[in-house]
């Protein structure tokens, strides 16, 4: 029961907009996480599981809401990555509230040109 209470006390999480783009042997995953700073971002790779958790900075100004469209909660994304992604080639950056992950594909997965030797 203690676990349940702890979980209920936690802030809600939801998935924000996410783009997946592939170019030059890299997969670029970018997620919109407005309100998340570098210190509040947590990215981990556990085997095949890639988890990105961004905690929003909460500083609510005084007053009552007239319009409320921004969802309250933190961001969480989980992906499974397969063996074509090189675990040692994962880079992450955050700029203006957009988290960008660069996943490098393994050399063996990249398209290769085969030279033909004429005899």
């Amino acid at each position, binding site marked *: 029961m203690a676990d349940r209470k702890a979980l209920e006390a936690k802030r809600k999480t939801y998935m924000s907009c996410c783009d*997946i783009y592939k170019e030059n042997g890299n997969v670029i995953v970018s997620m919109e996480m407005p309100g998340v700073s570098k210190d509040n971002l947590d990215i981990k790779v556990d085997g095949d599981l890639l988890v990105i958790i961004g905690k929003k900075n909460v500083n609510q100004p005084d007053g009552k809401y007239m319009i409320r469209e921004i969802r309250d909660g933190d961001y969480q994304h989980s992906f499974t990555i397969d063996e074509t992604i090189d675990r040692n080639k994962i880079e992450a950056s955050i700029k203006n509230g957009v988290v960008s992950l660069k996943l490098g594909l393994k050399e063996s997965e990249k398209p290769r040109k085969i030279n033909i030797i004429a005899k």
Partner: protein
Amino acid sequence: MAIVRWKNRDLAYPWDKNDPWADFKNLQDEINDLFNIDRYPEATGLFDRSISPAIDVLEGDHQFTVICELPGLNQKDLDVSIASNILTIKGEKKDENINKKGKYYKKESWTGNFQRTLSLPASVDPEKISAQLTDGILTITLPKKEEAKTKQITVNIK
């Protein structure tokens, strides 16, 4: 290349492990979530586009605060202006990959021009407006004019 969105049900609802209805509950939650996404803003001006960033407006005793989610925008892409009581937030969200040769596997974020217009219920002091853009969140503070503030009047009973 395979990259699949993954959802751990046991992590999300650990107390439901022995509940036979847990799957139905998950399904219900997921469907509810679909409807909860605010794709359409509640309040828009006449010339606003259908795609626009989400905003919060708060009214305090001395000021209005407008919070706007603008991930990926720089200061130079934004234009905030005020004419009497009408606040306009304009800007352009650019697609960084537009000139590159890659391919999108999934695109959920929007790009393009946007505009949001808000008419504020009380007069604000245009000289004292301040705006700040941090981590993709734009915060505009609009202090009310002296005459528009709520005043405390004490009544002396004799």
